[in-house]
Structures are given as structure tokens and as C-alpha cells.
């Protein structure tokens, strides 16, 4: 009897957690499916006559049009998606390559003072890039990278690197040394031993680092809208962000939801590995 009640309690709590997590997304999605009439007179919690106008609008091309009394801003959505994907993939690549190299150095080769190097790198995570952007902009202009995707890729990489180096180096540090040594005895160079054995072993940690990068970048729209002014070069976040959200917030919500689908799919596919990777890095101390 008691056990059964406990099971019920547990199930209820799980349902509550799911409801709490999903409700805001459900809520904004419902609003984005409404017609203007229903937006005003309908029930906020559900939609009676769903319309996909806000979604199809995103693909109507680059002309500004008038709908009712509202001027629909130009939204080259597909282009923005393409830009976002390019920047995201490049950032993940730069972050993981630089991160793995540094993590191997810090976790395995351990040069003098590695503990402090590791802390300094990690501490740089708390620097809010958003308040540094006047001098950041100077750097970017000096490098000739304004209105260039490369600027964002560089900045985004530095935002995700500290955490990635931290977990990867924690993992490499705790990996038994015999694993590498046995490969070296077989005649492999340190580089091949690393690439063939240690790197594949750390793939879950790499997944964790990659997903963390996605989450970190997905949160930014400020840097994107500052460094990419050309509407043809903007990312989804920057493009929708600088739009006049007060008039067309439903369009923006629709855009976010649409852009979120692939991101959520990737995250769902890798969520389990994300946790496994974090756990692997955390074993024997953070």
C-alpha cells in the first residue's frame, strides 16, 4: 500500500516537472498559431482555428509588405538560418579543436602551473562579453572583420572554450595512464595514441562540450546584432531580435520556434550522451 502511494507520488512529481518545463514553450507556440482575431478574443491557453500565417510569412521573401494595418518587415529567414548554421558549426569546430588540444596539454602533459592555467582559462568564462563590446568592436575593425561571420565565430568560441577545456581536461586527467602507455609501448607516437585511443574514448565528453557550445551561443542575440549589421549576413537571433518586435512579436515567436526545431532535435538525440559525458568528466572530483 505504502509502496503504491510512493509510486503515485513519484509519477505526479515527474508530471509536474515536465509541465513546468514545457508550459512556456507550449504557451508561446499556441500564441504563434493564432489569427489576429483569436489573439484578442480567444483563450490564451489553447487555439481553436490554428493558422500558420506567422510561419509561412517567414518564407515570403525579402519584400516588406502590408498586412492589414501592419507593415510586415522583410525577413530573409532562410538566409538567416543558413548563416546561423554556418556560424554554429564553425564555432563548434574551432571550440572543440582548440579545446581538445589545450585539455590534453593541461590534463595529461601537465606543464608547470597547469592548475593555474586551467583556472585562469575557466575564470575567463565569467567576463561578460556584452559589456566589453566597445573595445571588442575596435579589435574586430582592426582585424578587418566587421560584418564578417568570422568575428562572431571567434568571439563565440571564447565564450564556450573555458567550460569545454575544463571538462575535457578533467576527463583526460583521470583517464588511467596505462591506456596511453600501452599504445606507446606498441610503437605508436603520442599523437597517434591520442587520436586513435584517447580521443574516441572521450567522445561523450566531446558531445557534452559541443552541446554546451550550442546552448551558450543560442542564448546570445546581442553580440550577433552588434557585429552583423548587414541583414543578409545576420543570424536568426540577430535578425529577429532587431525586428520591431512590439508589432510583430508573433512572427518573431514563430521564427524562434522554427529555428528551434533542428536545435531541439539535435539536443534530444544527444541529451543522454550529454549527461554521460558530464558524468565521465566529473568522476573523481569536478
Amino acid at each position, binding site marked *: 500500500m505504502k509502496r503504491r502511494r510512493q509510486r503515485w507520488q513519484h509519477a505526479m512529481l515527474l508530471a509536474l516537472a515536465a509541465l513546468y518545463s514545457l508550459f512556456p*514553450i507550449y504557451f508561446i507556440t499556441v500564441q504563434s498559431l493564432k489569427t489576429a482575431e483569436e489573439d484578442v478574443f480567444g483563450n490564451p491557453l489553447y487555439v481553436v482555428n490554428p493558422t500558420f500565417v506567422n510561419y509561412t510569412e517567414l518564407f515570403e521573401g525579402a519584400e516588406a509588405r502590408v498586412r492589414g494595418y501592419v507593415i510586415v518587415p522583410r525577413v530573409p529567414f532562410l538566409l538567416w538560418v543558413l548563416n546561423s548554421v554556418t556560424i554554429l558549426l564553425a564555432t563548434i569546430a574551432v571550440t572543440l579543436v582548440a579545446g581538445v588540444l589545450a585539455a590534453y596539454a593541461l590534463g595529461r602533459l601537465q606543464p608547470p602551473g597547469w*592548475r593555474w592555467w586551467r583556472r585562469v582559462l575557466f575564470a575567463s*568564462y565569467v567576463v561578460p562579453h556584452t559589456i566589453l563590446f566597445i573595445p571588442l568592436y575596435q579589435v574586430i575593425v582592426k582585424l578587418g572583420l566587421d560584418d564578417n561571420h568570422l568575428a562572431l565565430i571567434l*568571439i563565440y568560441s571564447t565564450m564556450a572554450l573555458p567550460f569545454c577545456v575544463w571538462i575535457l581536461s578533467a576527463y583526460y586527467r583521470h583517464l588511467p595512464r596505462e591506456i596511453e602507455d600501452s599504445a606507446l609501448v606498441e610503437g605508436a607516437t603520442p599523437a597517434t595514441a591520442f587520436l586513435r585511443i584517447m580521443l574516441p574514448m572521450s567522445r561523450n565528453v566531446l558531445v557534452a562540450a559541443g552541446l554546451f557550445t550550442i546552448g551558450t551561443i543560442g542564448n546570445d*542575440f546581442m553580440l550577433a546584432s552588434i557585429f552583423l549589421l548587414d541583414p543578409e549576413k545576420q543570424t536568426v537571433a540577430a535578425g529577429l531580435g532587431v525586428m520591431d518586435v512590439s508589432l510583430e512579436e508573433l512572427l518573431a515567436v514563430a521564427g524562434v520556434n522554427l529555428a528551434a526545431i533542428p536545435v531541439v532535435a539535435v539536443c534530444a538525440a544527444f541529451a543522454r550522451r550529454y549527461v554521460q559525458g558530464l558524468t565521465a568528466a*566529473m568522476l573523481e572530483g569536478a
Partner: protein
Amino acid sequence: MAVARNERRGLSLSARRATRRRREVARAYALMTPALVLVLGVLAYPLAWEVWVSLTNFSSRAEGAPVWVGLANYRKMVHETEFWRGVATTVFYFATTTVAKLAVGVPMALLLARPSRGRAVVFLAVFLPWAYPGGVTVVAWYWMLNPPLITSYSVFIGDLKHAVDVVFGGGAYTFLSVMLFNIWRGGSFTAVFLLAGLNAIPTELFDYARLETRSAWQRFWRVTVPLLKPYMALAVFLSFTTAFADLANVWMLTGGRIIFPVLGTYAYWLGIRNGQFAEAAAYSLSLVPLLAIALFLLFRWFDPPQEEPE
């Protein structure tokens, strides 16, 4: 082969080990270079620039080259009531959201750690708030809680807003709505992160705890919390900057319509809107002592120096 040759040359074992170590250290520095160049390259100059500018009278209104004024900006700043209000708001914002994130994240992590039916689905649901692109959802959220136009629920929200603002002062509701978003997103991250932490703790420890303690409540405070502490510290650390980014996003989009500015957004306002770059830099840098204290405490919790003597 190599060993034989070295022995013929008469190198002792320790000398050989020393050369190998030296080569290893050189390789380590070479491998660290890309990451260090990236991080320092992007951050070092901007930080130095902020420090320098905060010591001058640089502004978009002043004519001629910026003049060195020493600590004048800081001296002026600490006499400003706006500044202390900003400090109080910043500390309040971080403290409240952090506690709330842990209050949401720890129970959800414990819930998901226990095997049960439907756990996989709920886990994905809990993962979603963090995975959902936050940059614009924060705006969507903001507009949802503060509907700009007449929508079906704006009367209800209006009443709520009025009630909150009457109790806590004008602007409290908008501030609260950004906080809610931050807690929702950060709590999800904390939950998943702590779930990973729980998995890393040997289950025997919990089994012993079951025998040694009388109630679940006692077990939670005496065993689970101390074991999770390093991971909680890490999670708190990681939610620092995202908290700031959320605020900055809304602040920028709404033209500073949040009445309670935190230090960072206030600095942004001074710098970008008013062109008072020097004051803005001083305000931004006033965050440094706060961050340094937080870092010092957190490193002590999640990167204890005594493990593994070198």
C-alpha cells in the same frame, strides 16, 4: 632500439626522463597556444582598454584627446546613489536567481536520478528549456508576460502587474519576468548538470546513508547536499554570465524600460546611449571585486587544491 642507443651514450635514466619531460612541457605549451590566443586575444585588449578608459575623461562630448583623470571616475561613482542601487540590485538578482535555480534544479535532478517509468521522456522535457534557443525566447517571454498589444490575457496580466508593482514598486513586475525566465532556463541547466553529478557519486555512499540516517530529510541535508556541493558550485558559476546575458538582451530590446538596472546594464546605458565611456567603464569594472570574491569561494568548493599532491 632507442633505449640501447641511449645507454651506449651513457645517459642515466633520470637524465633521459628529464629530457623527455622537457619535451613534454614544450609540447604542452604549444598545444595550449590556440586556446590561450583565442581567449586572451579576444579578452585581454578589451579589458585593458576598459581599465585605461575608466581612468580618463573619455566621452563622446569631450573635445580633444582623452585626459588622464586618475581615480576621479571611481570617486564620483561611489558617491552616486544610482551606483549603490545598482550594486544592491545586482547582488539581489544573482542571489535570488541562484537560490531559485538550485531550489528547482536539485529536486528535479533527484527525481530524475531514480529509475522509473517515463523517466526518459521527462528528462527530455527538463532538458528543453536550456536547449531552446534563449536569445530570442527571452524576448518572446518578456512580451508574453508584458503584452504590448491587447491580447486575450492582457487584462489578467495587467491586474497581476499592478498588484506586484504596488507591493514592490514600479518596474518590479518587468524585472520579475526576466528573473522568471532566467530561473526557468538556468534551473533546467542546473537540473541536468546535477543529474550528471549524482551519477558520478558512488551509489554505495547513498546505501550507507540509508542505514545511518533516520529520515529522508536528514539524509538529504547530511549526505546528498554535501556530496553534491562541488557540482552545485560549478552550476552556480556557469549560470553567472547567462544571467547577465538575459538581462542585457531584454534591456537592449526594450530601450531600457526595466526600471531596476543592474550594474552591467546601467554601464551599457551610460556608454551607448549617453556616450559617457569613462563612467561606463568604471561601472563595468566595479563588477570585478564581486566576481573575484565569487570565483575565490567557488574554486575552493569545486577545485580543492589539496587533491593529488604534485
